[in-house]
Structures are given as structure tokens and as C-alpha cells.
């Protein structure tokens, strides 16, 4: 599973303060800890407190790429912030994210193509959050169609079914899992799938357990990637073991260590 570490986000107090104070060491430490724990890429989000995200995202990227060349997921709802990041990023970018709204797709798909970035497409639109599997697939199909028309490689597209908190939308969990499976049949080559995992346990009292249970189940439905907290060791162990069960990695007695060293 492709793991994107979620911890460099201005909404966390330590990161928000580091962005404000331009304290590189805090950011770099957080980046390296996540990479060491097995993250394949790092999500970066300036957060709500940033007054000037267009400039802050460049500062974050420059700080991080001093210590790692892992791909970075540029996380913003504002295309101007994403493009600002793309201009300074040396490693491969992941644009996080576009919605299924045409006005978003028209800007972000060409941007992803121009910078050879991967693109996360949320199955959500200005009409609201989808309520079942079919609405998710409809929005996914719209995103895939736009990418095809624009000549954007579909294997670089990651569809996100929008994971809801289990205590808010319990009835939707199975719909989300089914959507992950059916994303694959929208086109050939198939788009990939991704979830922002932590949302599933928002507001619950056993977050880690719910996160890793959902991740394991989603893996069985063919999930390709997840944005999560890689420092949650039990969660990472579950992700790595899911790959084993899905026959994506060859077993050996030290498979957990081997994965983290790859």
C-alpha cells in the first residue's frame, strides 16, 4: 500500500507554530520520523492559521526537501497554493486534491499534467457529500472522463470515496468499501484508490483500532493508497500485513522490518 504521512499539517499545534516561527527543524524532524516509519510520501498542508499559504507552502517544501526526496502531496483546496508548491518541488508531486466540479477539474487536471504530478480526485462536488456507492461512482466517472479527455494518465489518478466518521455515517461504511472496489472497473487502465483514513474514527474514543480495522478491510476491497499517521505503529503493521495477505509482498520472518527498510 502506498502510504502518505499526514502529520505535516498546520492544524496540528506544533506544525502550525513551526510554520509561523519558520522553525525548519520541527518540520524536518516530523518528515524524517514519518519516512523512517514507512511513509512513501508526505502530505503537506499549511493549515487554517497560515496567513499566506502561497508562500508558506514553498517554505515547507524547501525545508522538507533538504532532508528527504520522497514525493510530497500538496494539500490545499486552493489551486493557487498548489501551483505555488509545484513550482519549487523537486520530487514528484501529488496534488491533493480536486473535486468532481468542472471548474476545479479544468484547472487542476491540466496543472497535474503540466508538472507530471499524481492527482487525488475526491468524489464530492458542490452539491454535497455523496450518500451511497452509486453517487460516488457517478462522481468518480466524471473525474475519470475529464482526465481521459485531457490526456492525463489514469494510473496517476487516485480516487477518494470520502470516508465519513463511523459515528456519524455508520450506514455508509459498506457503501464506501464497495465504491473502492468498483472504482477499478470504471476504466482500463484502472484509476487507483485512496482514503484519508483518520476521518473514519473522528470523534470516537478508540481511534487507532477503528483506523486500522477500516484500513485492513479497505485493503481487502483493493485500496491502493492511504493518507494516515505512519507513527501509529500498529496501524502501519496492519497495512504492511494487509499487503502480505493480498499477495503484494513475499512473506519472510522479518517482513515488517523489511518493508520499513525498503
Amino acid at each position, binding site marked *: 500500500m502506498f502510504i502518505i504521512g499526514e502529520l505535516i499539517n498546520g492544524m496540528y499545534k506544533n506544525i502550525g507554530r513551526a510554520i509561523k516561527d519558520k522553525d525548519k527543524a520541527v518540520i524536518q524532524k516530523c518528515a524524517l520520523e514519518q519516512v523512517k516509519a514507512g511513509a512513501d510520501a508526505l502530505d503537506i498542508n499549511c493549515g487554517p492559521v497560515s496567513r499566506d499559504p502561497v508562500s508558506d507552502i514553498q517554505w515547507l517544501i524547501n525545508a522538507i526537501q533538504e532532508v528527504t526526496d520522497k514525493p510530497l502531496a500538496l494539500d490545499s483546496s486552493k489551486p493557487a497554493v498548489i501551483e505555488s508548491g509545484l513550482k519549487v518541488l523537486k520530487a514528484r508531486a501529488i496534488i491533493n486534491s480536486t473535486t468532481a466540479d468542472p471548474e476545479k477539474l479544468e484547472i487542476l487536471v491540466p496543472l497535474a499534467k503540466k508538472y507530471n504530478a499524481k492527482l487525488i480526485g475526491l468524489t464530492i462536488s458542490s452539491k454535497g457529500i455523496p450518500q451511497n456507492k452509486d453517487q460516488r461512482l457517478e462522481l468518480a466517472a466524471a473525474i475519470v472522463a475529464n482526465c481521459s479527455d485531457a490526456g492525463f494518465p489514469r494510473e496517476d489518478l487516485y480516487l477518494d470515496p470520502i470516508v465519513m466518521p463511523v459515528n456519524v455515517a455508520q450506514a455508509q461504511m459498506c457503501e464506501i468499501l464497495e465504491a473502492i472496489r468498483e472504482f477499478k472497473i470504471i476504466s482500463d487502465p484502472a484509476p487507483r484508490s485512496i482514503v484519508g483514513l483518520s476521518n473514519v474514527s473522528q470523534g470516537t474514543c478508540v481511534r487507532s483500532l477503528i483506523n486500522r480495522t477500516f484500513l485492513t478491510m479497505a485493503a481487502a476491497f483493493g485500496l491502493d493508497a492511504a493518507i494516515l499517521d505512519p507513527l501509529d505503529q500498529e496501524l502501519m503493521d496492519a497495512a504492511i500485513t494487509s499487503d502480505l495477505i493480498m499477495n503484494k*509482498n*513475499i*512473506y*519472510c*520472518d*522479518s*517482513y515488517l*522490518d*523489511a518493508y520499513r527498510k*525498503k
Partner: protein
Amino acid sequence: MELSLEKWSGAVSTVSIGASKEEGGTRSAVLKVGGQKTPPYLFAEGQIPHRPQIAFEVWDIAPVDWPQELFKPYQDIIKDPLSWAQKCVTDYGAKSLCVRLMAAHPDFGDRTPQQEAGFIRDLLKKVGVPLIIMGCGDDTKDNLVLPACCEAARGERCLVGSAMQDNYKTLVAAALADGHNIIAESPIDINIAKQLNILISDMGLALERIVINPTIGSLGYGLEYAYSIMERARLAALAGDRMMSSPFICFVGQESWRAKEAKAPASEFPGWGLEAERGILWEAITATALIQAGADILVMRHPKAIEKIEKYINSLMGD
């Protein structure tokens, strides 16, 4: 119709065997194996920078159980290992030798580590080709003999074996100290092959210095099982599993000439064809299948089988 091509993200690691003068050794050539970015011989899907290499197997003592047909090409010199080695190079054009230190075995000659180290020194003077050095198969003795031989060949960047899951530390330490590559041997078991590579690399030996001996069976004796293990390991390597990305060495001669079909006399099985051809074909056919499975180094015995396989490799590589 357009070919449907796979994209591969990983590559087999490139291992260099033998060190030239400039690199601190005395070898006349350096063999490079591995480096593929595609499954075997799918040239359209990725690079195959190095061809498979054949190493002639020689022993430090005359073998007692080799069948007559295998004995014949070497019979005038087989009691003199240095001449045997030289004949492989000068008469048969060997580009590398795999020397098995069988005389160290308690049941054969029980030679001391010092004697074997002396033999390796003499061999390095006698021939200029890169060397593969194999122990006698007795773990306790090999743990004494192989470090002595590693030291005798310091800087020559030999390939030394074998490290196994329950006996690898001594050999890895010796290879690290004296600058050699190592053979990691697993008993036709992909999980152990991966685990052993992890254990060895945890000791600080770079993955680019490990060659996997997956253990093979010859034609009729588990060849297809070995083939499937090698195929699966290679696909994992190409998908990015670095712990599976080592080149393969296959002991083709050893396994092929154990087969009844290779060595049984024609008088016992008149319907099986000439003894003079049967063993050679058994060795050659086993080798071709393993080359298709991804073998990078083939340790072989009969010069005629080796000649056939050299031609086969030439045709595969388009030479």
C-alpha cells in the same frame, strides 16, 4: 496490433565478480551479472545489460563419484587441480571458475584451512579469471576454511559460498573483511531466501554483493519447482522488492549429473540412447530452462554442455 507492455519499477542488482589491477586485485577481467529491468529476455519491456555467465566447476581433489562421461574431458589432469583449472581456461575458454574445496571435508581429505588458503593463492596465480569459491558442505569445517580462503584472496572480489539461514555470520564477516561477494543459499524456499538476504544485509553487507542460490533440481527432479520459485522472486524484484533483487546462481552441473538419466550406463538402459550424449543433454536442457527462469550464473561441468549453452546465450542475446 500493439504489444501490451508491463512497466517495471524495480531492477535486479548488479554484482561485480573479480577485481582488476586498478581495483586492487589481479584478475584479467571483471564479470558483471544482474542489472535486468525486465523479466528474462523480454527486451521490449526493459534493459538486460549483462548476459548470463557460465562458471566451470573444478575441485581441489579428484572427484570420486563423477560418472565416466563427465570424467573423460578432464581425465589426464583431474588429479592436479591447478592443471584442471588451467585447462578449463586455456582449452575451453572458461571466463570464470567455481572451485569447490571438497578436500577440506572431513570425509575426503580433511585438509587444513592453511592448506586450502595456500591452494587458493596458487590458483589465483595460475589463472586470471574471476573465482567463485565454495566450501565443502560441512558447516563446522567451512567456517574455518572459508575465512582463511577469503583472506588469501583478499581484494580479488570473489564470490564465496554458501551462507545459509542457520550459518551465515562467519562467512558474512569474512566477506566484509576481505572485500568479497557472498552466495546466500536457501532450500528451494522463497521466504527463507528473502529472510536470509535481510539477515545478511543487516550485518552490513550491501545488497549489491549478494547472489542468491535458490537451490535447483535438474530436469525431471524438481526443475519446474525451482523455476517457479525463481520466477516469483524475480517478479517481486522487478516490482520493487529490494530484498529479492539479487542475481541467481544455479548449480546446474552438480544437479544434472546426479540424475539417473544422465549417468546410467547404456548397457542397463539400452533404450535411453548413448551415454556420450545423454548426460551432456541433461545438463544443457536443465541450463536452458533455468536461463529462461532468470539464472545469472550457471555453474556447469561438461565442456560440451557448456559449449551448447554459450551458443544458446549468444542466440538469446542476439550476438
